[in-house]
């Protein structure tokens, strides 16, 4: 198949073709500046407020219709929406000239006084429409808890949220016209599939965008041009670019490679592909790794999780990344591929320094394999941040113990936010292995922590606080596990 040199997307009911360097522009800016769709607002330009939320369908669901998800358009460059359907706030209601037939979520937002100044409202409307879409499709009931969970990614400074929660809970799904029906088009869906299986190669004077549709193409490109920067959901890079701290002249994204979007498991491992989003992972592990799923509930926002990938979080290698402590204690391993072959690296050996990886520039992380839980093991993940939800951690803690009766036959403990990388506490682990569990053992371990870590102070927390929380997490863990044994 011939390669494409443009990005093709559908915004509301308009087919849009993007050529040239414009493909680097974030969707939100494009909507506002090029398409006069100024309902979408840009507030933080870093995916933390949700004012720029739009709905995107990259794929179809089991019913063969567009599967919409809320994303932050301010950190989503156009090159990541090739073959996607976008719906903006202007497309949520059904317009005819100056008249609009309101969508159910819009009517309820009005009835409940959910809009005051109106600046965050378009983002909320899109997130709410996305929730209605999913809950009606899956025959679920909207509860106060689920409403809050779906709207965690949207900040409002006026209402105190109560009217918005009321609005979401009063949505009548029977009266809700689904956007996947309104925007359904057999011709477009088959076109979407064609676009998603076509390699895109865009080259400008000193910049290029490469969207391979086959893994071999990706590996080949990385072998000849190792300076390609890999972008997955752009939820981190998009921010750094927006704040002028980085430019990404040579960019490769893997979302057209179908095989990397898979998640599977057997008796030993859950295997997650490079383009699997955190939402897909979260839904999958709900039954398989409940402790991980619990942590993902307070990790980021729905918008970010719909966009970001698990492997993106792993490769970004932040010392305060939320998924890494768990993956470290569960002995997960990444699969690295290059044109020369494939190798597995366990996570403990993957991080060599602050944002430094045991990885060659010609290699690509294609998968991560996470060992499944055993019956006789206890795992806990803790995180503390300035705000409970949608906030970057100050300290993270993960511990996994395999028991043989009362004896701890295997102990793995990881801490984040206390060093340049997330770290495993090897010496403490050793001191515990083979011993019978007791709370005092962990209290002693907590007291000895200052031999192994020396956290720093920054705007999220002081070093004293980090040390105290790290110690307390040992106590909390021991207390919780002790209660269960």
């Amino acid at each position: 198949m011939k390669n494409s040199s443009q990005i093709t997307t559908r915004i509301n009911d308009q087919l849009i073709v993007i050529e040239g360097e414009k493909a680097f522009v974030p969707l939100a800016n494009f909507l506002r500046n090029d398409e006069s769709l100024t309902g979408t607002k840009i507030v933080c330009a870093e995916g933390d407020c949700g004012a720029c939320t739009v709905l995107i369908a990259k794929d179809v669901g089991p019913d063969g219709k567009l599967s919409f998800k809320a994303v932050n358009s301010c950190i989503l460059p156009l090159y990541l929406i090739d073959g996607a359907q976008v719906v903006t706030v202007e497309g949520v209601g059904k317009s005819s000239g100056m008249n609009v037939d309101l969508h159910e979520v819009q009517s309820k937002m009005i009835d409940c006084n959910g809009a005051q100044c109106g600046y965050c409202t378009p983002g909320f409307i899109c997130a709410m429409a996305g929730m209605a879409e999913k809950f009606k499709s899956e025959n679920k009931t909207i509860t106060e808890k689920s409403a809050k969970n779906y709207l965690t990614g949207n900040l409002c400074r006026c209402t105190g949220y109560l009217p918005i929660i009321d609005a979401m809970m009063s949505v009548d799904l029977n009266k809700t016209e689904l956007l996947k029906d309104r925007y359904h088009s057999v011709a477009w869906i088959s076109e979407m599939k064609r676009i998603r299986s076509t390699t895109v190669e865009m080259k400008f004077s000193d910049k290029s965008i490469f969207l391979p549709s086959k893994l071999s193409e990706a590996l080949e490109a990385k072998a000849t041009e190792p300076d390609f920067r890999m972008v997955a959901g752009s939820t981190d890079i998009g921010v750094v670019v927006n704040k002028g701290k980085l430019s990404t002249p040579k960019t490769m994204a893997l979302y057209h490679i179908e095989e990397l979007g898979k998640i599977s498991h057997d008796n030993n491992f859950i295997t997650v592909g490079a383009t699997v989003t955190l939402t897909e992972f979260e839904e999958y592990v709900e039954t398989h790794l409940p402790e991980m799923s619990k942590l993902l509930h307070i990790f980021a926002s729905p918008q970010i999780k719909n966009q970001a990938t698990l492997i993106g979080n792993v490769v970004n290698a932040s010392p305060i990344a939320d998924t890494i402590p768990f993956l470290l204690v569960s002995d997960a391993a990444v699969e690295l591929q290059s044109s020369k072959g494939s190798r597995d690296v366990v996570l403990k050996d993957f991080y060599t320094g602050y944002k430094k990886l045991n990885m060659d520039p010609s290699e690509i992380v294609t998968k991560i394999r996470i060992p499944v839980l055993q019956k006789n093991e206890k795992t806990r993940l803790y995180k503390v941040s300035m705000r409970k939800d949608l906030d970057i951690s100050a300290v993270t803690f993960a511990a996994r113990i395999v028991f043989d009766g009362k004896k701890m036959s295997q102990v793995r403990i990881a801490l984040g936010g206390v060093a340049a990388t997330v770290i495993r506490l090897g010496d403490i682990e050793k001191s515990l292995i083979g011993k019978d569990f007791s709370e005092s053992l962990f209290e002693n371990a907590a007291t000895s922590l200052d031999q192994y870590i020396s956290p720093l102070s920054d705007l999220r927390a002081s070093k004293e606080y980090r040390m105290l929380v790290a110690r307390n997490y040992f106590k909390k863990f021991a207390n919780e596990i002790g209660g269960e044994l």
Partner: protein
Amino acid sequence: MSVGKSIHHDSAVGHVTGASLFVDDRAKHKNEVYVGVIGSPVCAGAIKNIEFTDVLKMDGVFGVYTAKDVPHNNWGTIVPEQPILAYEKIGYIDEPVCLIACRDEETFNAVKIFVKIEAFDAEPLLTIDDAIAAKSFLCEANPFVRGDIEGALKNAKHLLKGAFVCGGQEHFYMESQATVAYPLENGQIEVHSSSQHPTETQHVVAHALGLDYSQVVCIVKRMGGGFGGKESQAAHFAAMAGLVAYKLNRPARLALTKDDDMMMTGKRHPFKNFYEVGFDDDGRITALKVLIYANGGAYVDLTPSILDRAMFHADGCYYLENCYIEGRAVRTNQHSNTAFRGFGGPQGNMTIESIIEDMAHYLKKDAYELRKLNLYGINDRNVTPYNQTIEHNVLPEIFEKLHKSADYSKRKKEVESFNQKKSGKLRGLSMTGVKFGIAFTTKFLNQGNALVNVHLDGTVQVSTGATEMGQGVNTKMKQIAASAFGIPHQAVILMPTSTEKNHNTSPTAASSGTDINGGAVLKACDAIMETLRWVFEHQQNSGIVYDGIKDMPALDRNVDLSHIEFVDGRVIDKKNKKEMMFRDLLKVAYLNQFSLAGYAFFKTPDLGFDKSTHEGRAFNYFTNGAAVSEVEIDEYTGELKVLRTDILMDLGRPINPGIDLGQVTGAFIQGMGWVTTENLFYHDNGKLLSHSPTTYKIPNIQDTPRVFNIELLENHTNTRNVVRSKAVGEPPLLLGSSVWTAVKNALSFRSKDKLPDITSPATNEIILMELARYE
């Protein structure tokens, strides 16, 4: 009658469909330029040189401007001392010093690094303590004194001393500061600004450019949130856009990024209030001495008025027999702190609420009992430290009703037994109150004007000086006008606020937008209705046929025609049992050459507090309320959850209960944010490091209390305000402090003999470190 009904916000449809237009949503003209702002690299000192010759040659750059390009480089609401672009003296780090006029934001980001700024770096003053030590004061206020304070302190049975410390707060309006300035013919400029104060914006733009006020029109359609942050501080950014438009004769747009907005603009004032309190065995306050210190930042801005309001609210809801309340503001090298919903009131009010919480722990009594004991009385103990008698005092009623409806006593016992279990979680419960004085304490600001145009099809356009920032003032204006004319609210629309229709207006601030502008709308409607009654009377009852040729007698306002009423789209003469359609009467009036427009001016009567003698009335009335909050602390991490909040507010007879409830929830959550997660974090060099939502955490939807009950008290006594309503914008924010005092209450279960000693905001870290202090 639409007053009293919860009609929808007048922009609701536009908001939910994305059609509502904000400043930066305006279509760009082909020749429009982007205005980028560059801030000072140093916190204190002066600029030595700004080198940009190379930048001028770059593609897409049309001009670079510094202080010397501004014809009159000074502004300031109270004292015109603040530069629009700083140079000789730097007030704070990131203070605007240079503008680049260029093609677009991308161009600005690409070229700004080539502007080379050299500066003299001086030692900055950053904290209140440092400023006090250096005697760096912005202003001081004449203290409120009552009784024999020294004697009462000396003779007090119990005495506590301490300092209440609270941090600032970023407004975090979703729409950052934004202006588009369009050059017109004859040296005129039209400014579209996200401003709470179009008149000041107009004046500052005109003054900066050396134009007449009449040459500048400022238009405000709406703001994406204001909260006080656009009361004074929209003006100089508008002047920057105006400057570029003036220099280049091209439309100029300035829309700050969130990061720049947070770094460059002022915030709520941090305070440090030293106190000594004397009280008896029952917990009755016998003496209170408070020395209030506000951190004003680099410039005067609105600080003196904010300091006043802090002092006016240092009594909270409580009677102080002997008191001494002194206030000072310090000048530091921080962004110039400014108005923020509450305007000093929260910092004053929270001090006494904190003190009472401490007294309760000290006396081993329940804080509610102490609050009730000290509450302002109805017939006695009802005079404030500034000599205002509280009329129609509903505070005792509010406290008792809420105590009951929130099930305070039972839950207090549950909290006690919960805390004995040592589950790793700790709970606290606390009630606080608010008695917020309504009126600008600067007397002349208590004025408003309105223009009402009645069209021949029976629809009405209303324009006032009030600005719409989400609070629903326009919707309330609509209801007032519709009710006056007896027509459906759909027949009235509010037009953009513009200084060519309404001039010399006051900022939409001090919760008074509806009070003063609504008063003016009502007067303007009354004037039109008088005309219409006159026309009705002559057309229906004179026996003369006015065919449009014969002159109808000129209006005589002294004739009493009050029996002619406006109801349900009709005009009814109750005496003569005649009626006609409102719309038909309008045509008769028009054909007989009567004006169907009304312009009216309103001033709040009887105000006039004299700051030197403390005589005269400070406030028109008080808006009251109380809240009970229950919190849970994780003892391992210090994490805080608000389990339940119950609020009871007295809003008089609300014009729009739906909109008012939204003000209460929004203000409470904003106040809760201020005292919990909203932590402004500065580098040692004074630079704000928490300048975006990644690092500055306003409350999220998950932070709302798990149970959140809000009720309004029925109160029809407020004849001092338009349609017996009460102002609502700011007062409920002060109730956010109930979360903070509940944290103190929770801590008191572990603090043994120590008094819980925390600052605000009570972040996880503050709470955990305090718990560690008890071990």
